[in-house]
């Protein structure tokens, strides 16, 4: 069905089409509209056989999902920023126990200073927690990725986080092609867990593992995570075949083939970057865009392949490690076995990313390694006193 919808409402609808049995959440901007809508869908009887549980914290939200999924039912939650940090311990727990929970992360900056607007610091704070992390470029992709997320999660037994830019996507009204219930049912089979809390066949889940076996447990998890790259690609292809939209997979390449400069980015800013590179290419430049759709596991080989002929690589990222630099840039550099990568830190705490700002930056000939887009130099020179 084609209609106009707010991103959050469309995401909630897509989640409902996946027939979860337990939805639990705790409010935090900008995730709120997703769970409000999900609650409404449950209470109005549009989501049969599902319970919406209001909890007292994010720790409880993910813990309820952990309990429900352990007992064998499909579970969903959503959060942002401080919320994902408040539940951090449970984030690791869910992946360590191989529970295929799906969670939306409405991406937002992490305080202090407290800031409710969009960037990717929250996702980066849990990037190594063992979850599969998919980034949506558009609200249509957000819808499609949630449907794929349940299937990926249950196929590879890993929780999946769908990262959706706060406000820019969650609160934006877009044209959405919402699949029908029958279509989603045909794509996503009912959840059929192998191991769960069952009185007929009692198992202990969440055992303590000593140094004797811990390395093996971790190594096996590592192998499975790597294997899931292929599953993410395959399920993306299946989705494209059934729904005609190439919204999943590992990477999205745009004019990368003959590009001299390739811009690497994730999430909603990819749209702006594509528009800009179209303009630049029309002026005779040779830009391509590589969007990372599956950030975890990181598709290093596919990234290297895609970037192999580029003369210049610019990574635009909405987070960075204080005192270190770009996070995605470091991973790109690693995938390429070294090599020059320019980092553009942009959109922190919701700062607008305009085509004009990016244009100057992409065409600039400086050899600065890390550029902070739109940095107010006057503020820095007024406030910065080296303390050594």
């Amino acid at each position, binding site marked *: 069905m084609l209609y106009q919808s707010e991103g959050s409402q469309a995401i909630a609808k897509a989640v409902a089409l996946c027939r979860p*049995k*337990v939805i*639990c959440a705790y409010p935090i901007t900008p995730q709120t509209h997703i769970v409000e809508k999900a609650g409404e869908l449950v209470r109005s009887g549009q989501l049969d*056989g*599902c*319970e919406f*549980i*209001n*909890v*007292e*914290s994010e*720790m*409880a*939200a993910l*813990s*309820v*999902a*952990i*309990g*429900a*999924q*352990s*007992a*064998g*039912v499909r*579970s969903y939650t959503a959060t942002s920023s401080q919320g994902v940090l408040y539940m951090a*311990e*449970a984030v690791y*727990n869910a992946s360590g*126990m191989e529970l295929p929970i799906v969670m939306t992360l409405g991406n937002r900056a992490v305080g202090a200073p407290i800031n409710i607007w969009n960037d990717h610091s929250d996702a980066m704070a849990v990037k190594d927690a063992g979850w599969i992390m998919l980034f949506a470029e558009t609200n249509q992709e957000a819808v499609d990725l949630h449907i794929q997320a349940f299937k990926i999660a249950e196929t590879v037994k890993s929780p999946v986080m769908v990262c959706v830019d706060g406000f820019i996507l969650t609160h934006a009204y877009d044209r959405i092609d919402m699949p029908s219930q029958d279509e989603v049912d045909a794509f996503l089979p009912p959840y059929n867990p192998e191991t769960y*809390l*069952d*009185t007929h066949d*009692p*198992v*202990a*889940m*969440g*055992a*303590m*593992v*000593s140094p004797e*076996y811990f390395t093996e447990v971790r190594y096996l998890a590592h192998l499975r995570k790597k294997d899931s790259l292929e599953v993410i690609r395959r399920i993306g292809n299946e989705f494209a075949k059934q729904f005609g939209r190439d919204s999943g997979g590992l990477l999205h390449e745009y004019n990368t083939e003959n590009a001299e400069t390739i811009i690497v980015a994730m999430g909603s800013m990819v749209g702006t970057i594509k528009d800009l590179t179209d303009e630049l290419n029309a002026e005779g430049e040779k830009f391509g865009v590589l969007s990372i759709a599956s950030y975890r596991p990181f598709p290093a080989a596919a990234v290297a392949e895609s970037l192999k002929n580029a003369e210049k690589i610019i990574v635009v990222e909405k987070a960075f490690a204080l005192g270190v630099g770009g996070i995605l840039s470091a991973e790109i550099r690693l995938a390429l076995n070294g090599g020059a990568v320019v980092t553009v830190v942009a959109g922190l705490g919701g700062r607008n990313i305009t085509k004009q700002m990016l244009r100057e930056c992409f065409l600039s000939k400086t050899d600065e390694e890390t550029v902070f887009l739109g940095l107010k130099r006057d503020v820095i020179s007024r406030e910065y006193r080296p303390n050594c």
Partner: protein
Amino acid sequence: MSELTLGGRTVQATSDRPNTLTSGHRACQGCGEALGARCVIDAAHKAVNGKIAVVNATGCLEVFSCAYPENSWGVPWLHSLFGNAAAAATGVAAAMRLSGREDVRVIAQGGDGGTVDIGMGTLSGMFERNDDVLYVCYDNQAYMNTGVQRSGATLALARTATTLPNGSYMGSDRKTGKFMPQIAMAHEIPYTATASISNIPDLEEKIEKAINIRGAKYVHVHVPCPLGWGYPPSETIKIARLAVRSGLFPLFEAEYGKVVKSLPIDEIVPAEAYLKPQRRFAHLFGKNVPRDEADFLQNIADSNIRKYGLKSGGIQND
């Protein structure tokens, strides 16, 4: 004492006890928590024909029972984290309800630290929503698994690794402590009870009652710890009994926030009889201990005896 008939035996004393926590686990000798948990889960198992699932908080009980590749539990059992057992149990209960297994009753269990401190937020949430979970706290009055540090449930003046008496400092501060049963009652949940491993028939009866009630239930079990309290492993039951007899651990039941029944003490003893055999209170019996320090715990015991009517016939409400 009434005569023991075969039919009147406790679950623990029967040959077909479910044995939900099998031997071979790694608890210390004389561990009150191991005994308490076995009695609780066995009684629940028997009461509902084995239709139970258990969620365990991190702590001694979890660590000594599930070290891979061994596992002592004969029931479906989940350990997630230290502070989230109540929330995880809420999820399990929801899943059972939503997958046509409403007959499976859910128990969450943890130590005093996992209950009154780090897990209190999720526990309060579970109470407030009246989720269909029986939460059992095994109270050994400190963080035992990490080496006997003070918790919010540590009895005043006790020596722990983080409240070592020193000069005029007499051990765990004279705070009122968090007595979780009263906090549970303030949520007006259907059922709250305290129990002791020194009175297994009473403990089993309370568990059997609780597991058959729908909604949030809370049972707080007093479980002495020989390692943390400093007494010989053979004395666990005796110490537990002295706690009850002194009035320092009152036994009662409450429904919807009101005490409906308390168990009168058969033979009241001075607090000292309970405290003196434990090394964690040894400093209270040295020289030059200020009078009010020495009397402090006796005053708590006296106040419990009055409050819960433990001297007379106990409280016997409708």
